[in-house]
Each structure stands twice: as C-alpha cells, then as structure tokens.
C-alpha cells in the first residue's frame, strides 16, 4: 500500500527515544496564557491584596463606564478636487514591472484611495508574469519607515538643486582633468536607461558604466558568449520539457534570475486518460536541499566536484565517448539511466547546471545543442544578469589605487554585498566624489559623500527588456512619499537634458520600440511584444574542456554552498517584516539564516540541534573559516544535505538602515570569494546554543496520519484509484461503507445546492512550495507580524502555512530492505547508495494548509458564543467582534489552522513592525478588519473577495463566470496549484477537480466534509 510511507516534519520525530513529539501532540497551546502583558512574570509573585484587587476593579469599571459614555469624534476630510479615476472604496489596478537587479516580474498593483496595497500577477504578460514571495512583499517596502526622505550630503539635508549643481560641477572638473568616474548600477536591461547612460557618457567621457549583480552569473554569461557570441543568458520554457536534468541548478529558486516555476509546473501534473497519463521527469543533483530538489522525481545529493564528474560523464554517455570519472558505480549507473531518459525524451529533454564554472556551463550548452532541446531558447536571450565579477574586482582595486576618483552608484549596496566590502569601503572613502542613489541609509550610503534619496519602484518610471523582443514598462502607482528623485532624472539633468525621465521614456519607446503601436496601450498593458529575435549560431566545441572537467580534484575540506533563500534573496528587502517572518519552505525557519549540515557531518563535527520541551529549536553555533575570514553561524541539521557539504544563505546580517528587530542572521557575502558560490571551508563547533524561531514542530496534527497522499506515475496509470486514493471505510451494521456516505454521517445535512458553494482545490503536484501565497495572504488579510520571540513560542499568525513533509522510501523498515537489496551494487560511500539514515535523502512533499472550511465543522459546535458559524456558501465564518477568546475552537480543530491573537499587534511598541507606524499601516487592506487582542482568527477563504465578486455582479446585473471567484492565494499562485471556484457551477474548473480521481480531503475519516480538497501527488519515479 502506498500509504505505508512514514511522514515526518522534523528530525526529532525519527528519534524513537524522544517523547517530545508525543508531549507536543497532547498540547494545542504549548505556552500558558500570559499573566501580564509581557508574559514573563507570574501573578503569584506579585503582591496584590484582595483590597487592591477590589480597588482596581472598581476603578476600571467606573473608568470603562465613563469612557463608554462619550464616543470619539471622527473627522472625514474629502478631497478638495477629487481625481477623476478615484472613487473612495473602489480599487484601481495599474500594470507595472518590478526590476530591482534581483527580481523581475510584470505585475498588477492594486491601489485603494491612491495607496498601493497589494501586488497581483499580470497574467496577460507573456513572460515573468508571476510575482514570487519577495515581489508580493515588495509593496510593504514602499512604506518602510527606514527610507531616506530626501537628499543629504555627509548626513546633512540638502536640496536637489545643490546636489545636482555640486555633483555636475565636480563631474565637469573631473572630465576636464580626465579623471575616471565609475557609474555602478545593477543589471538594468532597461533600453531607455541605457540610452540615458550613453548620453551621460557622451557628456562626460570619463565615466565608465559597470553592471553589478550581488549574486553573480558570470560563468553562465561568459559561457554563452563563447558559445553563441552574445553576452546574455538563454531563456527556458519548461512547459515544453519532458525530461529535466538539473546539475546543481535551483531552477525553482533564483537560478539565472528565477521565474521558471510557472512553466515548470505545467508539465508536473499528470495529463491524459486511460492509464496513459504523462508528466515530465525531473532529476536533480544538488548539495543543499533546494526547492528544485524537493520537487524533483529523483534527487541525488552530491558535492560540487561530483556534479562536475556527473556532467562530464553524462556528456560522454550522450556522445558515446568515454570520460572515465572517479564516480561510484551507483552514480555511474544513474548517469547512464539519465542519459537514456534524455535520449528518449527528444526535444523535450534539457540539461541545466548551476555550477559557477565556465567549462560546466559550456558543456551544458553543448549537451542541449546535441539534444536539440526545445526547452532552452537561445534566440530569445535575456540581459537581466550582466554583471562581470572580474570588472567589479578591478573597480575595487582601481578605487584603492586612485585610478578611479569618482563613483556614482544607484540601486546597489556593494559595501554590504561585496566579498571584499572592507576594501571597497576604503576605496570609496578615497574617492573625490561619491554619490549613492539609495532608498535606505545602507552600508554604501553611509560611506558616500552624497546620498541621493531614490524612490521605491512603485513611485518610479522605467522599462525593461525581459528577453529579446519582450519589453515591459514600470509606472508610478503613487505620488512619491518623500523628496526623492530617480537616478535617471538626475543623469538627464547632469547631461543637460531638461526633459523629465517619463517624457524621455515615452519618446524612446515611440521611436525605437513600439514600431507604431500606441504607448498608452503599452502602458495600460504593462508590456509590449515585438517579433524580434537574436540570430545566434552555436559555434563552440567542448570535447577538450570536458576532459578538464573530469580532472577536477576535490579539495578535501567541507564544501560550502552559498545560496539565496526564497524569503530574503540577495538581502535588498531584509527590512521587510513579511519576508523575515516568512518560513523558509525547506527548513521552516523564520527570522534567521543558518549553516545547513548533514546529519553525519554534524555528528562528526560535534554539532547538534536540540528541541526544547515546548518544541522550540536550538542549534549549536559553528565557526566557518575561509582564508582567514571567520563567520559565525548557527547550525541547522538539514535532511538531504549532501555529505561533505554545508550551506549558508546570503542576505542576512545586514545592520545599516534596518530596524533593530530585523537585524538578524549572519552575513554570508564575505565568504563569496571571487564570486564563487562554492568554497572549501573549515567548520568548527563553538560554545553556546542559538535559539531558532522554527515553525517545524508547530501545529502538529496530534498524531493523525494520512495527511499527505502520494503515489507513483506507474501505479497511477496501472492501478485503480481505490488502490492509491482509497476512501476510509467504516463499519455500519457490520457492513463496510464509505466514511462520507450518508449512512455513516451522523450530522444533519445542510442544503448547499442553491447559490454559490465555494471550494478550493490544492494540487500537490503543481505546488512547488514557493510561498508566494503565504505572503499574498499576509497582504490581503492584514495578518500581523509577531516577531521572532513569539514565533519561537509557536504563536505564528500565518493563516496559510505550507507544511513540508519528509518521507523516505516506503517505511523506515522498508529502508533497511532497500539497503540490503542494493548492497550488491557496490560499497559506495555516496549517500545515494546507502540509506542507513532516513534523513540522508528524504523525499519532500509540500502541502499548503489553511482553514478547511468543513461543512461539519468541529470548531463551530464548541464555540460558546457562536462566533464561528457556517455560511451557506461553504465558508466557515469567524465574527471577531463576537469572539471572547475561549480558544475552544482551536482545541477542537483537527487541522490546527486557527490562530489566536495573544497580543494587540497594531499600534503596540512591543511589536515594532509595520503596524506600529502610520507609514506601515498604509498597506492595510481597508476591506478587512484589523483584529484585536484576545480573539481567534483564521482563513476566511477571502470572503471579502468572493463578496466583492458577487456584489459587482449584482451591481452589473449579470451571472458570474468561472474564474471570477478568487482568493488571495489562488490569485498569487502562478503554478496553477490552487484553484478556487463555485462547485454549484457544474462547468467550473473546480467542479471538475472535485470529481477528479486524484481528489481527497484531509482526514476524510473524521467526517468533517471540508470545502478544501487536495489532489494526490504523483511522482514520476
């Protein structure tokens, strides 16, 4: 039976001796109710006499009565002149794009009364049309209270005129003396900005432009230039893939600019009938456990050196040449198996690599040419990554040597992101002229003479070439909040062009891009597509360099793999509390980065993870040493981490321009030597334990199993659905009946056949665990941020969590059999061959869980004040104003989806996140109430959105079409994992999904009849 698999969320669950999980599963709330506001003192310790108590009671009753007598006087201030398109209470949407040098997406911005409050996917746009978690959260960065509010010189406020005049004069003087000036920007890929920079350089010939990526793709860029003659990156369409082989490339993460998950998911759902369902097959070789590995059909943990061998060996197998490598027999067998699969897949085959090695990148391009892959598109390239590591290193040297005397920077923070940041800062201080365009007083701004306050992208104009022939526009969605100016505008002024950037942009588009079509249409749509393509021809020969690849030698020490987390990325938005509180999809840790170590390495190094009695996780602290640089980081034992490797995420440990609460983690950039993400380091254990805020052991399902259902494509195709998706049977009069059948149901039926009946379908196959929905839910529903301390106490407020389950082959006992069976293949030391430990290479399943909106809801029956009640449309309503906070509902919820407001999280200095200042509160959704202390809350299936759809239809006097009903999570999911709709509309997609043979409900056996359904995960193993 497929359901014999054992699922576990945390290492500690595998420990048979540990009673912790049992203990935790007995407790709904691991902490007691706080006796006073901070929960740190107990009432017993206080000296409060009965008389005092009566005094306080009497006073507070009198005060409350008096206070209640007079209501507050509310003022309403209407516009003096109301803008034509703004109607108070009605949202406007604007199409724009985010391009911040790391993330790129075509998006729609929802504004209410002129305030952007939410980011939505612009699905009409053909490329990069979905917003990841960081882009979803970027709207909050607009209202960051740490933003610079105006230009400064040496910390003193100046006017823009002063700044422009002084900088212009100094530039002119430097131009006259032929002193070099560097202009450093992120990879802009903005045609108009490139023109403006060219004009600027024409005026000041001493200016050199550098594109700088904090996380570099130099190797891939160089390889593509060698192979095709253009310094750019190819683009990929994984929806054409039938066999994907990734060698160290996190294709669902930020590999080559990210954004590949939308097309990837399209082929991950089995399609086709009568036992001939097909889906793509994904092999992943990697060291750290990434999203890609978690979603792969086969994940093979390997070191970077092994990955080079595998690539060489795979090239050999495909070209029928012999490239002998020191790989284990098991791995060699796997490579041959993969080569056969690739050959069989034809043009649907693709090989990608994330190795920061030019040879490896060229080899992969050669393999894809050889396979004739349709997935890789070399004729539509992208310049979203342009940075050249060598040039940036040279710039640091030149600054220190006095060869470059002026530097202007916009949108980059090299004083934080450069591995040799100290040297860069020293050089920066030597410069005669240093100007930084920044939104924050970050590390670079603090060391610059002039700080030019830059606007957030939602206040800016701009454009971008997503890929060849695909252009997108950025337009302001709010008037600048502060006295800010875009660097393009300042460059134009310095070049002597009086036109505003918006006009220059429009003119440039009209003359060079639009080819006669309307600018207004392009601005309205947010994008423009022309039929341009690169005419590039493959002109490389890699046989020799593959020889070089397979001669690589392992350096012996531990391999450190530096990576970017889904939440924080390169660290630009580290001051964003939504992202800090976002649980990492793999580790479920919030508010931290950490050194991921495999279990066996941890044992060898004396590193450990300890779970406290309340489920909170503590980790040892390790010192990571590389060429004399030492970095301290807490340790997290990561199931699936390749032996001999450790991982550490960028983007943390930032201190400048950050709220103190947000200054968490360790800065990994100093270890990013020569922009190589793989380094050989020594790791030593140090004293002390680090306290993590990890949601891993929280909200356990009280030991109720059978949450995740999965099967293999083979079983799916050959066996009956009853075998791999069985309905729980119960005995009635000694006859087995389905648990959902009427005979077994003890609840009174409630007629839901009339009107709308909302259902949400979650496809475990399409869900990659990216977490965009989690942040979208945050933004839509005014979910508060509670901070690291509270998360550690299991008091996270996320209405939607994505559970990550690990599982090993069948049962653990079956693992032992597996090991016995494969022992004949050789005494390989590779983790693939030996499964002595279930955590060595677990399979991963992601499962988004929110309120299941049970038709027979256990929470409703226990509420003493009827605050939780059921709607005819299938939603489980929660009336916050009625709730008195007994928390019985949370105790009785089998899915653990109810969240309790332990504190007042808004306008409370104890929780100094976005809800504590006027600026941050501008992001709140005015249609959803901000909950107060002491009430229970939970997912409402975005009832404000379904109501809005109904109200609009009534207003327009029409029926509602399928697809109009959406929730924040289903809107945010670009992968099609979440489908929402009305099952009473028999033609709707969700009604079909309800009849799908993959459909099942969580804990069907308890008879709650949820309105949220899941689709069984099918693995193509």
């Amino acid at each position, binding site marked *: 039976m497929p359901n014999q698999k054992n699922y576990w969320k945390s290492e500690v669950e595998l420990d048979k001796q540990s009673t912790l999980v049992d203990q935790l599963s007995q407790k709904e709330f691991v902490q007691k109710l706080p006796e006073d506001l901070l929960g740190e003192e107990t009432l017993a310790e206080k000296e409060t006499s009965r008389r005092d108590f009566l005094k306080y009671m009497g006073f507070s009753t009198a005060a409350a009565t008096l206070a209640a007598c007079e209501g507050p006087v509310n003022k*309403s201030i209407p516009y003096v002149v109301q803008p034509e398109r703004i109607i108070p209470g009605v949202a406007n949407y604007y199409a724009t794009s985010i391009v911040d040098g790391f993330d790129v997406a075509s998006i729609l911005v929802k504004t209410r009364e002129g305030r952007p409050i939410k980011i939505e996917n612009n699905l009409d746009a053909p490329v990069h049309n979905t917003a990841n978690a960081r882009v979803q959260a970027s709207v909050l960065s607009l209202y960051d209270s740490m933003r610079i509010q105006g230009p400064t010189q040496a910390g003193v406020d100046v006017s823009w005129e002063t700044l422009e005049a002084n900088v212009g004069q100094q530039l002119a003087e430097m131009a006259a003396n032929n002193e070099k000036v560097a202009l450093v920007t992120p990879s802009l890929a903005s045609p108009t900005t490139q023109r403006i920079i060219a004009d600027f350089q024409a005026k000041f010939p001493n200016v050199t432009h550098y594109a700088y990526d904090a996380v570099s793709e130099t190797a891939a860029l160089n390889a593509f230039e060698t192979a095709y003659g253009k310094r750019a990156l190819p683009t990929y369409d994984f929806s054409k893939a039938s066999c994907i082989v990734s060698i160290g490339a996190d294709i669902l993460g930020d590999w080559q600019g990210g954004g590949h998950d939308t097309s990837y998911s399209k082929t991950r759902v089995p399609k086709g009938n009568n036992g001939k369902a097909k889906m793509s097959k994904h092999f992943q070789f990697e060291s750290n456990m990434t999203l890609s590995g978690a979603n792969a059909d086969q994940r093979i943990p390997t070191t970077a050196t092994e990955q080079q061998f595998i690539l060489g060996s795979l090239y050999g197998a495909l070209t029928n040449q012999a490239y002998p490598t020191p790989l284990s027999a098991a791995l060699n067998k796997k490579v041959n198996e993969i080569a056969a699969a690739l050959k069989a897949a034809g043009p649907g085959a693709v090989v990608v690599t994330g190795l920061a090695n030019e040879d490896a990148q060229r080899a992969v391009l050669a393999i894809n040419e050889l396979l004739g892959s349709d997935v890789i598109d070399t004729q539509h390239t992208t310049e979203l990554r342009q940075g050249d590591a060598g040039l940036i290193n040279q710039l640091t040297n030149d600054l220190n040597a006095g060869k470059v005397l002026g530097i202007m920077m916009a949108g980059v923070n090299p004083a934080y992101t450069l591995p040799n940041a100290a040297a860069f800062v020293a050089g920066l201080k030597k410069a005669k002229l240093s100007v930084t365009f920044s939104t924050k007083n970050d590390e670079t701004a603090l060391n610059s003479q002039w700080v030019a306050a830059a606007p957030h992208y939602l206040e800016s104009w701009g454009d971008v070439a997503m890929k060849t022939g695909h252009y997108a526009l950025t337009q302001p969605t709010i008037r600048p909040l502060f006295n800010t100016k875009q660097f393009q505008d300042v460059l134009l002024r310095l070049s002597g062009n009086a036109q505003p950037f918006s006009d220059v942009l429009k003119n440039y588009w009209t003359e060079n891009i639009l080819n006669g079509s309307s600018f207004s249409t392009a601005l309205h749509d947010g994008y423009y597509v022309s039929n341009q393509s690169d005419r590039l021809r493959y002109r490389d020969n890699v046989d020799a360099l593959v020889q070089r690849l397979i001669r690589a030698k392992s350096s012996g020490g531990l391999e450190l793999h530096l990576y970017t987390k889904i939440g924080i990325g390169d660290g630009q938005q580290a001051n964003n509390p939504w992202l800090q509180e976002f649980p990492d999809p793999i580790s479920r840790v919030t508010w931290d980065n950490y050194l991921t170590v495999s279990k066996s390495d941890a044992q060898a190094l004396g590193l450990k993870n300890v779970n406290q009695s309340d489920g909170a996780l503590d980790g040892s602290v390790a010192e990571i040493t590389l060429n004399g640089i030492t970095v301290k980081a807490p340790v997290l034992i990561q199931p699936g981490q390749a032996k001999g490797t450790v991982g550490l995420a960028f983007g943390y440990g930032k201190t400048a321009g950050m709220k103190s609460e947000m200054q968490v983690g360790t800065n990994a950039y100093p270890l990013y030597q020569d922009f190589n993400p793989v380094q050989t380091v020594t790791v030593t254990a140090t004293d002390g334990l680090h306290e993590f805020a990890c949601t891993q052991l929280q909200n356990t399902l009280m030991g109720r199993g059978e949450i995740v259902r999965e099967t293999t494509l083979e079983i799916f195709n050959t066996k009956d659905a009853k075998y791999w998706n069985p309905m729980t049977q119960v005995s009635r009069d000694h006859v087995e009946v389905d648990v959902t059948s009427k005979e077994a149901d003890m609840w009174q039926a409630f007629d839901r056949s009339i009107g709308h009946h909302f259902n949400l379908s979650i496809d475990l196959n399409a869900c990659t665990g990216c977490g965009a929905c989690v942040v979208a839910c945050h933004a839509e529903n005014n979910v508060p941020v509670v901070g690291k301390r509270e998360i550690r106490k299991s008091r996270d407020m996320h209405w939607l969590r994505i559970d990550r389950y690990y599982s090993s082959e069948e049962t653990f006992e079956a693992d032992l059999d597996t090991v016995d069976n494969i022992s004949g293949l050789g005494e390989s030391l590779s983790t693939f061959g030996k499964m002595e430990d279930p955590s060595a290479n677990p399979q991963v399943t992601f499962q988004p869980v929110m309120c299941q909106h049970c038709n027979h809801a256990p929470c409703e029956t226990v509420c003493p004040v009827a605050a939780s009640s059921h709607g*005819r449309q299938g939603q489980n309503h929660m009336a916050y104003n009625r709730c008195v906070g007994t928390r019985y509902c949370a105790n009785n919820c089998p899915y653990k989806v109810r969240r309790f407001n332990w504190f007042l999280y808004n306008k409370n200095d104890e929780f100094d996140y976005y809800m504590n200042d006027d600026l941050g509160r501008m992001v709140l959704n005015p249609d959803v109430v901000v909950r107060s202390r002491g009430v229970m809350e939970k997912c409402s299936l975005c009832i404000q959105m379904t109501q809005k759809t109904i109200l609009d239809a009534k207003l327009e006097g029409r029926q509602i079409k399928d697809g109009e009903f959406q929730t924040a999570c289903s809107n945010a999911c670009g992968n099609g994992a979440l489908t929402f709709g009305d099952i009473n509309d028999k033609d709707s997609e969700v009604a079909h999904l309800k009849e799908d043979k993959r459909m099942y409900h969580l804990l069907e056996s308890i008879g709650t009849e949820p309105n949220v359904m899941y689709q069984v995960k099918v693995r193509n193993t």
Partner: protein
Amino acid sequence: MFKDSYLAHLSLLILSLCFSFGVTAQEPDIQKGKSLFNANCAACHKLKKRAVGPALAGVSAKYDKEWLYSWIKNSTAMVKSGDAQAVAIYEDYNGSVMTSFPQLSNEDIDNILAYTDYTPPAPDPSTKAVATTVEAEGSLTNDLILAVLLLVLAALVSMLFLVNKTLRKIAAANGVEIAQKEKVKRIPLWKAYAQNPFLVFVTVIFLLLSSAYVGYSYLMQIGIDQGYMPIQPIHYSHKIHAGDNQIECKYCHSSARVSKHSGIPSLNVCMNCHMNIAEYNGEEDLEKGYTKEFYTNEIKKLYKAVGWDEETQSYTGDTQPVKWVRIHNLPDFVYFNHAQHVSVAGIECQKCHGPVEEMEILYQHSSLTMGWCINCHRETNVNVKDNAYYTKIHEELSKKYGVEKLTAAQMGGLECGKCHY
C-alpha cells in the same frame, strides 16, 4: 448713480421706442425678458454682480444695441474678427468664451435687455401699513371673544354661588340640619403598607426589575449615537439643498452608486453650482438666526476652503480641506456597502438616513445597531427585477421556501460572514 441709470433708462426707453417703431410696433416685455434671462443667461450672469460673465444691469447703456445683437448671437466670431470691444471683454475674462445664442431673435434680446434695465420700484410703505392693521384687527377680535367668554363664565360662577346660598337659607328655614361627618381614626397609609409583607415584597421585586430595566437600557444605548447632531465646520443645510432645491442625494454623494462609501462630496462638486451661487436668496429663519447673511457667509467659507477668488472668478490654488465631523460611524468590524443598498436594492436613502431633506442640521436618524440591520433584512424583499444575477438563484430559492418573494434574510443576509470580515 441712481441718476445715471435713470438717465440711461430713459434714453434706452426712447431709443428702443424709436427702434420698435422702426422694426415692430411692440413694447419690450419685461416678464418675458425675465424668463429668457433665467433660462439662458443666469448660469453665467448676474444683474448686479460679476459672476462668470459681467453684471448685466444697465448693459444696454454700455454698448450699442446692434453690437449687442451680434455679440449675443455669436461672440466668438466677433472676437475673431478683431472687434475692439469684443476683444477687450474676451481678454478681461481670461479668454473664457461666451456661449453663442443664435436661437435668440432681436425681439428676445430686447426683452432680455428690458429686464436687465428694469429697476423694480421701491416698495410702497402704504401696503405694509394696511397689512399691519389687518393683523391688528384680527388679534383684536380674538381678544374680544375671549373677554366675552370670560364674562359669561364669571356670571355663571356667581349665579351658582347665589343658588347655593339661597338653598341653604331655605334648608335653615325648614329646619333641616346638614350633618357633619365624623372622622374615623385610621392607621396611616405608610404604616399599613409597611405592615403588609406581601406588598413590600412586590414593591422590592418591582423596584429591582425596573432598575434592572433602566440599567440595561442605559448600557444598551452606549455607543449608539442616534440623534447625534454635531456642529460642522460649514453650516451645510440639507434642507436647502435636498429639500428646497430638490437636488438628488446621489448628485453629490455619487459614489453611493458604485462604492461601499457614500462619500462626502469633494469641494469641486460644490463648486459646480456655487461658482454661480455666491449668495443665499431663499427663506430665512430669523428665530434661529439663519439669515441670508448667515447663509451667504457659509458660502464664503466654502470659497475659502476651495480657494476661489470671487473678484477674479478664479481658483487661487490656496486650499484648506474641510474637516467634516463624521456622523454615521459604523465600527471597523462591519462591512457595509452603499452601492448594494442604493443601486442593487434600490432603497431610498431616507430609509436609513431619515428625512434628510428636512434637516437643517444633519443628525443620525437610525440607531445603526445590528438588530436594526437584521430587522430590515428580515422584512425587506430582494429587488430581483431585471437583474440577471438573481434569475437562477431566486427561482430555486423561492421554490425551496415556497414563497413568491424572497427576503434578504432568505438570500443569506443574516449570515455573520456577510458583514463581518
């Protein structure tokens, strides 16, 4: 001044007489002129005051009549042709173009000019005097009747007294004695009450119940601001706007049609009318101090807030947004949508807001409690007419409940989550 205009009047009269003799034999009709003026000119012109266009009283004295004919019929052409006077006016009024009125005949224009030149005669003091006397007479007769009635009453009382006296005398003469009743000694009422435990018990219960009732009613009205009538920064009279002038509610509160908010109109909406209405000429309520000056002064407050310069008839850009005091305050945890009630259900604004058109100062008419909402949802039928959204659901639901018309409650309008999220 008077003399000047009088002279102008006279000369115009003579002039027009000459013309009318030449063209037609008719006298210009001041009444017709007034209605034409109100229909065509009043939007931009006032008689004695500059508005969008110049004040028109005595305009015929300033310009040649033929020139006025062609100017009124097509001013743009005249400006284009470079007529010195026309260009002067055009520039004087910042290049705003006067609407052309080709439909007006010379006769019409004469009538209008006759009206604009007409000075109403000073009111005759004799008429007023007559009125007062009539009023005085009226009150006199009333008093007279009262006095007569009083006299009659007094006569009746004295007659009764006399009758009584006579009867007693007769009784005394006949020897009949009128016995005085003897007083019985009774226990005082309060003592009797205190001695009756049942009564005391009942009273205590009654007192307890009534104080509970009073206490409960007091607590229940906390937070309910029915009748809340705050003083607003500008004395805006809904009575004058919605009542006297019959302005549609949704002309100003336009977002009530499409949005959850009814919206307090932005000041540019006020200026749609008040660009021309700079003073109040309606009824006064002297008792409360609502004089014409008072209202005109409130209009000036609007001009100050919106930054409107009456002299130059232009916006100065110096604005001071008005901080209105919000009257209808729903708690944050309630979602209420105006458009659903106004546009979809077609409910009159007055149903919840009361007789706004009679409110000099606006107040909260309804209690705005949940019970009040729910009651209405229970009683009100859903307006399904010509609304395709309801077609299917109404048919199915009315079959289910066996009714012709569905109430909002039957449609699900009592579910918590419909309003609380």
